[in-house]
């Protein structure tokens, strides 16, 4: 037992290296706590260490593995089978950095994800792909590690997987330039009403007289009126389902670029459920690009376009659907949900907004015909049905959109 402090300190160090939040205080606490229990009881020993050294659910899941590996103890019965596999592989391969790196990322979860992915995960679009890429790098670990990751991710968000969707930095500059042009080029019919406007052309006599009182009746400053230019507001709905994997990143990048240059943008993602991500899109810190944290039902799952769109109309419609709203939907129209919802939602969108744009990446295939049931139902309500993959295409798109009143 005299070696116990050394063991505990070594174990803490091992955990710390793997991303656990452990400081000197925790080591001390562990030793104090161990004094108060019966250490021959393995279960209690395990629980005490787990309670003190873990600080989130993800860490708890990874902790067990490290614990049994470190103390070379037999694992409990209820232990998921894949952890055993993981341990076996761990023993065979000794230290393998890829796995440790992966665990660290999983364990630290959302807290670190943005930073870690920005730095280390260039070009990886989503954790699914990341796991896949990792599995490809290390063939033998493929199955069990993938399972472990999914399991951990699934546990993280209650019953649903928490995923991340980073904004890709490639071609970002030209995308931003396009977004600027896009915003500028959306044609809006101007109101005929005159109102106070610094750049106006018509003199506002009454206001000028009144202002002249400040300068002793001498009209030094003119007050002008003119037509105010009305600007469009945008609602972007991004289908994040698995079938959209290749395209959704581009669309999100466009959404980010748009949000950077105008405040009248609301961004949503949906897969089987709708989620507003406007705040997250604008949240990139320290000059880094934002990484969206979404759930499996909003990203990377199946598609329920109808349900998602009608929940948008229900929840956000009254506030966001106005006469100057341009609704942009990016989806392949492969709906697995109830089609009747889609029809209603699309008719409402058309009625209450000023333009409905549907970007379907499948249109880039030469012989694609919109014959999927969902797409068919939606078509009559769409003003512009096209695809836009490159910054240039988005720029062109603006010219097609004209706001009807």
């Amino acid at each position: 037992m005299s070696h116990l402090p050394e063991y505990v300190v070594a174990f803490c160090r091992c955990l710390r290296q793997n991303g656990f939040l452990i400081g000197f205080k925790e080591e001390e606490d562990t030793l104090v706590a161990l004094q108060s229990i019966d250490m021959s009881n393995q279960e209690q020993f395990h629980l005490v260490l787990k309670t003190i050294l873990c600080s989130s659910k993800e860490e708890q899941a990874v902790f067990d593995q490290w614990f049994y590996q470190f103390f070379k103890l037999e694992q409990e019965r209820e232990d998921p089978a894949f952890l055993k596999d993981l341990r076996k592989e761990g023993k065979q391969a000794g230290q393998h950095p890829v796995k440790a790196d992966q665990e660290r990322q999983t364990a630290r979860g959302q807290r670190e994800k943005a930073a870690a992915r920005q730095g280390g995960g260039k070009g990886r679009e989503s954790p699914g792909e990341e796991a896949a890429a990792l599995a490809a790098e290390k063939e033998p670990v493929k199955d069990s590690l993938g399972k472990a990751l999914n399991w951990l991710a699934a546990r993280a968000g209650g019953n649903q997987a928490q995923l991340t969707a980073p904004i890709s930095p490639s071609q970002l500059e030209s995308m931003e330039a396009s977004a600027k042009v896009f915003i500028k080029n959306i044609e809006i019919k101007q109101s005929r009403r005159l109102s106070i406007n610094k750049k106006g052309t018509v003199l506002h006599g009454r206001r000028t007289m009144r202002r002249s009182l400040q300068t002793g009746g001498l009209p030094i400053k003119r007050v002008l009126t003119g037509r105010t230019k009305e600007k469009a507001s945008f609602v972007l709905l991004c289908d994040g389902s698995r079938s959209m994997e290749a395209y959704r990143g581009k669309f999100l990048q466009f959404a980010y670029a748009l949000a950077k240059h105008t405040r009248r943008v609301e961004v949503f993602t949906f897969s089987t459920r709708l989620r507003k991500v406007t705040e997250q899109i604008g949240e990139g810190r320290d000059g880094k690009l934002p990484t969206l944290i979404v759930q499996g039902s909003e990203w990377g799952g199946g598609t329920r376009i109808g349900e998602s769109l009608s929940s948008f109309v229900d929840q956000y419609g009254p506030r966001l659907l106005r006469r100057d709203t341009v609704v942009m939907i990016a989806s392949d129209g492969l709906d697995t949900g109830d089609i009747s919802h889609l029809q209603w939602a699309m008719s409402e969108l058309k009625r209450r907004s000023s333009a409905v744009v549907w970007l379907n990446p499948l249109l880039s295939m030469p012989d694609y015909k919109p014959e999927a049931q969902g797409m068919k139902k939606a078509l009559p309500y769409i003003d512009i049905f096209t695809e836009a993959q490159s910054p240039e295409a988005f720029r062109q798109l603006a010219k097609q959109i004209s706001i009807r009143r």
Partner: protein
Amino acid sequence: MRFINTGMTSIEEVFRQNGYITDRPIVTALHLVRTLQKPLLIEGPAGVGKTEIAKVLAQSLNTRFIRLQCYEGLDAANALYEWNYAKQILHIQMTENSGSSLSEKEASIFSEPFLLSRPLLQALREEDASPVLLIDEVDRADEEFEAFLLEALAEYQITIPELGTIKAKHRPYVILTSNRTRELSDALRRRCLYQWVDYPDFEKETAILQARLPGIDKQLADQIARLMKEVRSMPLSKVPGVAESIDWAEALIHMHQKELNKEAIYETLGCFIKDKEDWETVSREIEEGTLLNL
């Protein structure tokens, strides 16, 4: 065993008496709260009995239970202390002609009778024994409040400029709960012991139902627990917790149902399904018979 002798069994026993079925991890965590005097952060989905843990802990220790419910916009004034402005103004008006000096007046209005203690201060000023301080749903409070909380929990003392520093005579046992609607800061996590509470498994849920509702039929409890397990595996937007199963069981008892059938479930669906879409999903499952074929 030493572990048992340090009051662990007593905690477990009182928990059982209060109808709270607990397991080893929670008992261990509470034991550590007492030995290490560190706050305990409990996370888990809604309705799994996180708050209840703190309540029962207070009962088992036979001390006062103080609760601080967090919400968006909660600030120090509502969590710590506040001066009773209305009373102070009244006091000034009433003593206007008493002839006392300015400093006397000041001293009198900034004294104990004019201080409104909020939960945190109450917990620190407890005279007799360590109270249990529950900081409920800490994820709902703003990040600024979290930082303030850290400061208060680090030293267990608070300085009120007009009165001086108040140091806790007995360190309160602090339990924080979170539903994970927002990620808590690393600093707070590090300061706390951590426990994740999940939905109970089938056996535990049956035991909970029986402990909470002594009159319940064993068969009914079994059926409810099994059906709940199924329901929780469905893609619902609001997954029912243990609180809902207890409510539901109670409703069924009042309806004199000895076992579950289609009609009974339909009539009482509102006890555990609280969302229109979920309602449709569950009733579809019932209609198809997948839920009842247990």
